């Protein structure tokens, strides 16, 4: 099975681990991530105004690339996933945006939202299956108490993202179970880490991350995992518990992480 | 075509069906007509299926549903919408039909060919994407796609909506905006609109071909022939009558018309009658949400449904 893969800017730089372990694990699990040629930055945030079009085009290009290859589009970074998934939804459902985007793109066949956008976690859950993942695990992380940190971008708005229950998600907990560890459920796992505010108001972001960390450790977590480089950055600054990308633990459990 | 004949013969032979509803050769290559076949010989001799078999056979199934045993009916993708609509209205019996969905790559319009200046046509054969035309004055050729019926340019798709089996490949031939013609008229001034329809409808000779071919116009007795509305058929004395006739006809099939285009195809005067039906379809789509008659066998239909928030009739004025 081959997927078109959109890594995004951060995965090429600060979040190389997130990317590398994902590719390695994918191979181990029997699917392949084919990086889209000449992908452009998704913009980091979903374009704000209902009338904006230009900033959505890079997503449309990636989506159309996958469509032409006849593949589903897999993302890894929460922000890229959020932006691309929402743009795809716009193209599918909002005629005006679809028409205007296609006017710019001048494609042979107009793009109308045909591509399915999947987060890597969704591939694990819906395509590979957590049961199969469990079977593939060579070094189960038995006894480790791990808390999932979802953040905002994967879950909300749930009508579009349709990723998991926005207020009580379970996908990463199920993932943690599949790799043999014990998931720690805590109420702040879908609260905001502060996001971009940390650039100019680090203190505010720190306060928010502390609440998250406190709650997680209060419920007995030893570490946090996440899918988002910005969340990881903000949480790490707070420093209470270690935070790693979920792909790193995946690779570890699959026995392919080099020490 | 041979595949269809072979399969039809098989189904006749094993008793699955008692007859076949298809097309038989006409006196010219371009006017095959709907016909029932009951024997293998008849099929071998007279059956034809080709680019000129535009006729929608659904309506003939109303009568066939009353006959003994099953009828094998050949339906093109767009015909299946009509057939579904007839099931919806209990006019045909699904159990009495064995449906072979036949492939369709668009059907031909002899008028288009003639209008391109070809005269004295003797025979037309299909050759891939081209048509070879033999005429009294020698041979010529024309692109298949240039000779399509209007309805094929706004093809509803290559999928059969109902069938028992499929034979042959279909193709979506749409290459025009379905409502472009309607929009063009909508943009005219009232005077231009009036002049346009006056001109078109004055050609009407009230031959009733449109009514007779229409799969939605399947009433046992047409209101124009009944005394219920005091609107019995009269000879047309001025264009007014034709306006009434065509508005009423279009209204009667509004929400039920699948846009099969048969009315325009058969009109001997070449009146674009589909412009009436399509206007209603466009309005229904705009006012009440996308609706395609015949796409869903169980649909209630836009004129027998409502929502609390429907637009008011004054929208016509507001829209200008």
């Amino acid at each position, binding site marked *: 099975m081959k997927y078109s893969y959109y890594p995004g800017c951060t995965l090429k730089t600060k979040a190389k681990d997130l990317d590398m372990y994902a590719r390695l694990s994918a191979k181990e699990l029997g699917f392949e991530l084919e990086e889209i040629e000449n992908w452009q930055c998704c913009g980091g945030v979903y374009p704000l105004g209902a009338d904006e079009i230009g900033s959505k085009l890079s997503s449309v290009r990636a989506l159309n690339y996958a469509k032409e290859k006849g593949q589903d589009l897999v993302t890894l970074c929460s922000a890229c996933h959020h932006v691309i998934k929402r743009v795809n939804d716009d193209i599918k459902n909002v005629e005006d945006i679809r028409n205007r985007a296609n006017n710019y793109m001048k494609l042979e066949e107009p793009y109308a939202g045909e591509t399915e956008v999947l987060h890597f976690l969704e591939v694990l859950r819906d395509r590979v299956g957590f049961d199969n993942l469990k079977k593939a695990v060579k070094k189960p992380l038995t006894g480790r108490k791990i808390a999932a940190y979802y953040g905002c971008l994967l879950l909300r708005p749930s009508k579009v993202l349709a990723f998991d229950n926005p207020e009580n998600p379970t996908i990463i907990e199920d993932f943690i179970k599949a790799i043999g560890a014990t998931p720690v459920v805590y109420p702040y796992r879908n609260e905001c880490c502060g996001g971009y505010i940390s650039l100019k108001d680090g203190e505010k972001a720190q306060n928010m991350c502390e609440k998250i960390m406190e709650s997680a450790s209060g419920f007995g977590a030893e570490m946090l995992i996440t899918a988002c480089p910005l969340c990881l950055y903000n949480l790490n600054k707070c420093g209470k518990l270690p935070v790693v990308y979920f792909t790193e633990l995946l690779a570890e459990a699959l026995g392919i992480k080099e020490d | 075509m041979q595949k269809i004949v072979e399969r039809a013969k098989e189904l006749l032979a094993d008793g699955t069906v008692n007859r076949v509803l298809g097309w038989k050769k006409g006196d010219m290559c371009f006017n095959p007509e709907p016909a029932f076949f009951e024997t293998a010989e008849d099929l071998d001799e007279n059956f034809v299926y080709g680019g000129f078999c535009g006729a929608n056979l659904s309506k003939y199934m109303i009568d066939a549903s009353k006959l003994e045993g099953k009828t094998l009916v050949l339906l093109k993708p767009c015909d299946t919408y009509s057939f579904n609509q007839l099931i919806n209205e209990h006019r045909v019996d699904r159990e009495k039909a064995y449906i072979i969905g036949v492939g369709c790559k668009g059907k031909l319009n002899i008028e288009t060919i003639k209008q391109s200046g070809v005269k004295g046509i003797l025979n037309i054969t299909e050759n891939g994407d081209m048509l070879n035309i033999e005429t009294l004055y020698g041979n010529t050729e024309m692109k298949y796609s240039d000779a399509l019926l209007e309805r094929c340019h706004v093809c509803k798709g290559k999928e059969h909506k109902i069938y028992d089996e499929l034979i042959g490949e279909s193709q979506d031939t749409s290459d025009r905006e379905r409502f472009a013609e*309607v929009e063009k*008229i*909508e943009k*005219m001034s*009232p*005077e*231009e*609109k*009036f*002049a*346009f*329809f006056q001109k078109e409808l004055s050609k009407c000779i009230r031959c009733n071909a449109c009514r007779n071919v229409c799969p939605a116009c399947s009433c046992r007795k047409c*209101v124009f022939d009944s005394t219920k*509305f*005091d*609107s019995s058929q009269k000879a047309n*004395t*001025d264009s*007014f*009558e034709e*306006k*009434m006739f065509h*508005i*009423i006809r*279009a*209204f009667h099939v*509004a929400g039920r018309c699948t846009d099969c285009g048969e009315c325009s195809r058969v009109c001997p005067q070449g009146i674009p009658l589909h412009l*009436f039906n399509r*206007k*209603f379809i466009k*309005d*229904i789509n705009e*006012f*009440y949400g996308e609706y395609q008659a015949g796409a869903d066998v169980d649909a209630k239909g*836009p*004129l*027998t449904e*409502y*929502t*609390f928030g*429907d*637009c*008011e*009739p*004054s*929208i*016509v*004025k507001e829209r200008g």
Partner: protein
Amino acid sequence: MPINKEFKPKIVAFCCNWCSYAGADLAGSSRLAYPADVKIIKVPCSCRVNPMFILRAFEKGADGVIMCGCHPGDCHYSTGNYYARRRMTLLFSMLDYMGVENGRTRVEWVSAAEGVKFSTTMNEFVEKIYSLGENVRLGDLRCKK
């Protein structure tokens, strides 16, 4: 537009029995005048009005046709006016499409308590018909001697 003094329009008003006909009665008992050109036909419900009646009126020389019913939501038969609303919307749109002036047709929801609305509506409508003049586009000229 110059108003033709000779022109006496024929205007047919279909009124449902439960709301609009009663609204017209109220206009009457409140002495709220409107032109005599309007003639009312009582129907049980606006959903009884067949588009063919409206076309028939035009055929026979009517210059305007108005239909009145209960307000949506208040239909005596619960749902009749909803169907009527769809039917009339489509019919009017078609007439407009064919170049018949859209001011010649109108739907108004008038309750039994809206005598004033009935009267104002009729005054407006008649004025509109005067401004449009004689209906030539959809009339059978033989009927209009």
